[in-house]
Structures are given as structure tokens and as C-alpha cells.
């Protein structure tokens, strides 16, 4: 139907002129930042979806979003309905729509890929949630209420997801978080990957459903929380950078990666990293740090990793992006010391080779090659070799071999009534896995609390 066009272009024209478009003025002229699809692109892409039965994308998504249904809704122009479908399964919908590594989840199994190329599922998901945050959140139904409250400690992806799911199940929820809510996406995912307002679209939506208490949990407070709640869900993540344990670690100019990423996000202007930056570590966080250092103006950014490319546990898209930005990646290189007087001047490295022996992760063990030492000059060294979970009030909890908090299949820790999920039980994972953890844990917590009430 022809409709008289309204909107932005009209403003510039004299009032006596109107323009008529075949579909009305479609929202394609509204361009989102960060290359989000526009309405026309989303319609065309959604038209490609085969709507297959028992869709593998839905199975592959850790939060099991009903992907064919939401894509069908984008196709019919029901974009708010599409956003509702996404959010029903994934509480951190907008964040996941932006940064979820689709190449290892939904898109990797898309049936359409067998015909030509996979549907750009994440892009369509993000289009829907962006449109919803622009148009206003849909009204939720009234959830039932159950006596007694549940506490969630840590307001990252797992904590938020669990808190929201518990709300849906009828629980009052108190969330304890020492910083602002958002966890890893807020503190350490670089803003070029996830802008603040993209995360806030989720946190603003979610924070209405529970009480947030800005408190740093200690042993005394933890006991108090236990006393006042029917159950507790722990999701404090991995807050502490692991020390590398080589000489020179305490020199000025050595930065643990989480500190570095956090500073780069909140006050990049005071962060002086010099021209030459070396990143130690071969994970996704290291790649984030390398790309961030480049963006902060470092001339040379070298990432060193003791194994080879095939052992790297990173998303290919991020590795390629880092390379595209000019990050130099040196494989089979192990740091042996950080050199310098009061400030650092470089990293002493040693070449490695991979032995036939495999470690518990199934990857070949690197062996240092004698006499291959060399120094890479550096003004800043960023240590990104992993993080651990440390807190005095967690002392009574059983741990896994890797030092994470041990839980059973119901996310129950060794302490009765205390559940845990997210990175603190599994190590560094994806946002979507943490969201899925939180959601699943909410259901076992619900069962646990309901049993108590009966």
C-alpha cells in the first residue's frame, strides 16, 4: 500500500512537498552504528532461512533460542515478536546479538550452509534486539510469587540470567555486586566490540526485576546472606589475573590483562602504554588486549604464544581481525623473563617445539629449545595467561583440579543451598554459555527451594 512518507528527510524540505514510497518510508534509512543490518537487508536475509524442522541452530545455541521462529517473524515484519522470542530464551539478548561467536554455535551448523552459505543468524538476532530497544520493551506478564528470597552474588552474564529466570519462576531476588551490573561485558570486553549502550539495553531491561545491592561480599556478609535467603547462586566470575611467575613480573610496565582492559575501557586517556607492546598468552582475551593496544596507538603489538596456531583456543574471526589490525603473532615462543631496571625494556623469550606428549587439554605440550633466547623490546607487557577465582569467603568450597569452584550437574556446590555457575565453575567461557548456565541453574534452584517449601 502506498503511504505518505514521514520522518527525517521531510524536515529539510519545504512543507508543501510530500513524498510517497511504495512501502512507506522503511526503516532502512535509519542506520544503526556498527554495521547492523537495516530492515531491507534483514528481510532479504531472513527470506533465505529454510525454516528447517528440529533446527540444528536452536540445538547448537547454548540458550536454545527458537531461531527459525524469530527469523520467520523478521521475514513477516514482526520484529518486536522476533525480539520477544530471542529474549524469552536469552536474558542478555542484545549483548549476545552483538558479540556471540556464532561461528562456533548456531551458524556453524546452519542447514543452508550445505546449499550455499549459512544464514547470518547473529546479525538477524542483533537487528531484532536493537529494533526492540529502539521501539521500547514489550510488556511482560505478571509472574507468580513464591515466599522467601534467593540471593545472586555477581551480576555478570550468569548472575543476571539466573536472577531473571528466578524472577520468571516467581522468586524474589537480591543481587549482590560490588561494581555496576554487567560483569565481563561491562568491565573487560573492549568497547569496539561491545559499546556501553549495547550492554545497557540489556542491563536497563533486567535491573527492574530484582533488587541490586552494591556490596562487596566478605565472610561475614556471606553468612548473613545465607541466613536471609532460601538459596544462593554464586556467579562472581574469574576476577583475579594469574601471575606468570617469571623474573621481572613486578616491574613497572607489566599489566595484568583484566586491569589493562578495564582501564582501557573506562579511562583510556590516562593509560600510557608506549609504542611497543607485548602480549603474553594465546586466548580470546589476549586478542582483545592486542587489538585494544593497537587502538590505543601502539606502533608495534606482538602477541607471543608458546604453542602453534592450531592449539590456540580463539575464534578465528577475532584472530583474523587482530591480524588485519597489524598485530604480529609469534607462535612457539615462551617468555622466560621480563627485563628492565625499574621500568621494563623487553621480554626475554625462548623458542619452543611441540612434543608428541599431550596435556590434559588434549593439546601437545611445548618444550623449550635450549640456547634460543632472544629479547623482544617492549614498553608495556600485558600478561594474559588466564584468571582464577579467589576470595576468602570461598575457602570452604570444594574446588576442581583447575581451581574452579566444584559443582554437581545441578550446579550445587559442596555447600548446601549454595549453587554456582559461569566462569567460576568452568573457567573462561563465552557470554552465551554463562547465560545458559544461569538459566539452567535457576531451574534447579527453583526445584531446590520448592522442595524446601513443601
Amino acid at each position, binding site marked *: 500500500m502506498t503511504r505518505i512518507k514521514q520522518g527525517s528527510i521531510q524536515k529539510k524540505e519545504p512543507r508543501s512537498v510530500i513524498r510517497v514510497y511504495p512501502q512507506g518510508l522503511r526503516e*532502512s534509512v535509519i542506520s544503526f552504528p556498527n554495521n547492523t543490518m537495516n530492515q531491507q537487508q534483514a528481510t532479504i536475509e531472513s527470506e533465505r532461512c529454510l525454516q528447517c*524442522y528440529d533446527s540444528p541452530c536452536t540445538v547448537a545455541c547454548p540458550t536454545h533460542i527458537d531461531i527459525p521462529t524469530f527469523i520467520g517473524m523478521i521475514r513477516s515484519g514482526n520484529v518486536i515478536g522476533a525480539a520477544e522470542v530471542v529474549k*524469552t530464551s536469552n536474558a542478555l539478548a542484545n549483548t549476545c546479538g552483538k558479540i556471540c561467536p556464532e561461528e562456533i554455535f548456531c551458524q556453524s551448523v546452519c542447514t543452508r550452509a550445505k546449499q550455499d552459505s549459512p544464514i547470518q543468524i547473529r546479525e538477524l538476532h542483533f537487528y531484532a534486539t536493537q529494533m526492540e530497544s529502539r521501539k521500547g520493551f514489550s510488556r511482560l506478564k505478571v509472574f507468580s510469587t513464591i515466599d522467601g528470597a534467593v540471593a545472586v552474588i555477581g551480576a555478570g552474564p550468569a548472575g543476571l540470567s539466573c536472577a531473571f529466570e528466578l524472577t520468571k519462576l516467581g522468586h524474589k531476588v537480591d543481587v549482590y555486586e560490588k561494581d555496576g551490573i554487567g560483569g565481563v561485558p561491562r568491565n573487560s570486553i573492549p568497547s569496539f566490540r561491545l559499546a556501553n549502550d549495547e550492554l545497557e539495553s540489556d542491563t536497563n531491561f533486567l535491573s527492574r526485576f530484582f533488587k541490586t545491592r552494591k556490596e562487596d561480599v566478605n565472610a561475614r556478609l556471606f553468612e548473613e546472606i545465607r541466613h536471609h535467603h532460601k538459596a544462593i547462586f554464586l556467579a562472581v566470575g574469574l576476577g583475579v589475573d594469574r601471575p606468570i611467575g617469571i623474573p621481572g613480573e613486578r616491574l613497572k610496565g607489566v599489566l595484568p590483562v583484566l586491569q589493562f582492559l578495564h582501564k582501557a575501557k573506562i579511562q583510556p586517556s590516562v593509560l600510557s602504554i608506549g609504542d611497543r607492546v607485548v602480549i603474553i598468552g594465546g586466548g580470546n582475551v589476549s586478542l582483545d588486549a592486542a587489538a585494544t593496544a593497537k587502538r590505543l596507538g601502539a606502533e608495534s603489538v606482538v602477541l607471543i604464544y608458546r604453542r602453534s596456531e592450531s592449539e590456540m583456543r580463539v575464534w578465528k574471526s577475532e584472530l583474523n581481525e587482530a591480524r588485519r589490525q597489524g598485530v604480529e603473532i609469534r607462535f612457539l615462543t615462551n617468555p622466560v623473563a621480563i627485563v628492565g631496571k625499574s621500568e621494563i625494556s623487553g621480554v626475554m623469550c625462548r623458542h619452543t617445539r611441540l612434543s608428541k606428549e599431550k596435556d590434559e587439554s588434549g593439546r601437545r605440550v611445548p618444550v623449550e629449545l635450549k640456547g634460543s633466547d632472544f629479547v623482544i623490546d617492549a614498553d608495556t607487557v600485558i600478561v594474559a595467561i588466564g584468571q582464577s577465582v579467589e576470595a576468602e569467603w570461598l575457602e570452604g568450597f570444594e574446588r576442581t583440579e583447575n581451581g574452579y569452584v566444584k559443582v554437581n550437574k545441578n550446579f550445587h556446590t559442596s555447600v548446601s543451598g549454595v549453587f554456582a555457575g559461569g566462569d567460576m565453575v568452568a573457567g573462561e567461557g563465552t557470554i552465551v554459555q554463562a547465560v545458559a548456565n544461569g538459566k539452567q541453574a535457576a531451574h534447579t534452584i527453583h526445584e531446590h527451594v520448592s522442595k524446601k517449601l513443601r
Partner: protein
Amino acid sequence: MDKIKEPSMYSTRDLSYDFLGIHFENPFILAAAPSTDNLDMVRRAFRAGWAGAILKTTSVEGTKVDLCYPMMSSFDHEGRKLFGMGNIDLISEHHIDKVEYNVRMLKKEFPHKMVAASIMAGRKEDWQSLVERLEKTGVDMIECSFSCPQGNIGEDPGKMLAQSISATELTARWVKEATKKIPISIKITPHVTDIVEVARAVKRSGCDALTASNSIQALMGIDIRSFAPNPNLGGKSTYSGMTGPAIKPITLRTIAEIARNVDISILGTGGASNWSDAVEFMAVGAGVVEFCTVVMHYGFRVITDLKSGMSHYLDEMRFSSPKDIVRKALPNLAMHDELPRRTVRSHIDKKLCIGCEVCYIACQDGGHMAIDRGSNRIPDVDQEKCVGCGLCQHVCPVDSCIGMQVAA
């Protein structure tokens, strides 16, 4: 088994309203077709959320249903599957006893759903006995097929009942006479010289509604190597009844033309595939909308989007009920000589233009040679030559790039 879905956390909007004295949970019902010929299929459809179903057309005892296979064919338009769907299907093979049983079971299990039967016959006594038998089962409505495009049962083979004004009126009268209280709808064909005359005949007969309209008689395609038409039955074929997105504009016109001229309820069907199509059907006068092809393509699950899309549309438009949509567009339909005569010119948004120059070619070879190549492949509209025909904006691949500018 259908997949288990997470329960929705959103408040759902009431889409229910009354039409023809029947309560509809929402405006979406299943048309008489293979999807409604089996009790389990209709059960699944109802559980999925469909408001009602018209069971596949049945006839009198002893009528042999002489089917042949394959019966389906597709009009694939440049890569899009089932842009139009053809069938050479006939009525249900189920005996009338079976249809009566299905109605009874469905009304018992789903008392709040609309269950209708569709019938077709030749002789007066056959029409009337079908109505009498079905009404006793508790059926909510009866739809009479006056327009099956192939294998019609009637005195004039090859011709549809609804193509004769007098036969339509007479037969509709027989049906209405035999009915005690349920509404009767006559399913008509757009293959007539004047649809309004047919609608008036139905109105005169006393029947309650029209179902507009049946499939479009079509030849679905020819294999250009073997010269076998589609669907290919050993090299031979016949004309199909075509449905699906391709026929939507034809149905829209049919519904609108009836609604503008005859005061009678309309069940819209023929080419609606989503909620916005349904809104369009209702805006030109349909009270509810029947679906078939989209369900045969994608399954009963499409009801989820139909309901969700309709709910959000009603919210956006601040309508209180789907009924508010009905006839909304009719005041805007006019005769050609009543349309405004204004100065219209094409306007290309140079910021949105991607430089394909498709509009240039179209205007050169199909318009008024009013688009110049401009510079850097961004075309210019010659304001002197442009008459405002609008061709350019329909060939433009970019949404909202070319607008027709009108001096208000």
C-alpha cells in the same frame, strides 16, 4: 512430536471477537484443504493456536473421488519456492460419516474452536441432506464450495457453479432452506465477469456469508524440452488451481469489490501468507482470514507469528480488536476518474543511491527518458521530462531511495 518451546514471558493480547455469531479466538482459521482432512492434523493445529478449521470438502455418499498423482505443482519465481502453488486435488476421500465423526470429536475436545464443514454436491436433495446431517453434528458453520476449479460436480462439467448467477442463487437457496440456525458461507471464484453480481445472488438467497475466493485456474508450467505440462502425469497434465502469494492481489481486489457493493459478511482466503496479508484482507472487508498454502509449506507453527504479529500491529495502531481493521481501507478505494490529478515528479535520494542505474535503464526503455546518467553513476531526474509514472521507484533495489514527490 512438536518441539517443546519455552513458555512466553510476555503478556498476551486478547485477539478474540465475534463474527457471524461465532466466537473466534483470533482471526486465523484453516481453509478446507489437505491440512484439515485428518483428525490428528486438526488437533495439532488447534493446539498450536489456530482459531478454527474448515474441514476438507465432503460430498454425498457414493460419489467416487477419482484422484490422480502427483497433484501438486509449484510456480517458483526466480528462486523463490512456491510463489504460487498449483493443485489438481479434488474433494476429501473420506466418507461423510467420517467427516461427521471428525466434527463431533473436535467440538468435544475443543469446544472453543470454530469447526466448520465444507460441502459440494449436484442435486438439491444431496445439498440439503449434507446440510441436515452436518448441522446435527454441532458444526459451527458450513461452507459450500461453488467454485472448485477442477472436477466440479454439477450439471455443466468444466464450469464452476459460481460462474452462473442463476445457479448460484438457486443452489444457495436450497442450502439455506435446509439449514436450521448455523451460518452458511458460499465459496466463490474470481473467474467471473462481474463478481458483484455473484455476491448479490448469494445475498438474495439468504445465505450469511461469502468465502472469497477460491484458487485461480492456471497452467502451472510447461517443460520446454519434453513439452509436458506441470504437474507431469506421464507426460500429460491439466489446469491447476493456483494459490499462494502470487494470487494475493487478485483476492484483495475480489474481496474489496464485494465489500464495496454488497452488504454481506466475507471470509477472506487466497494468497494470505502472514499477519500483514491478513490485515490487508480485513482492511478491504474480510471478517476472518483462511490460510492454506503457507501452512502446507511451513506447517501449523506459522500461527505463532500470525498471532504475535497481529498483536503488535494492534498495539502499534492502538486498535482494541481485530474487528477494528475490517473495512478500514474501503473509503480509500475510488474509481479511476475520481483520482486526484496532480503534478508528480520522481526524486532520487543521492545519499541512498548505490549507483546501479537500473532506474536509468527502466526510464530510458520503459518510461519517458526522463532520467539522466548524472555523474559518478548517480542518476539525475530531468524535471521537465519526468511525468511521475513511478516505474523508477519500483525497480530501485534500495528501500526508500526513490520517492514520488508531490506538490501538496
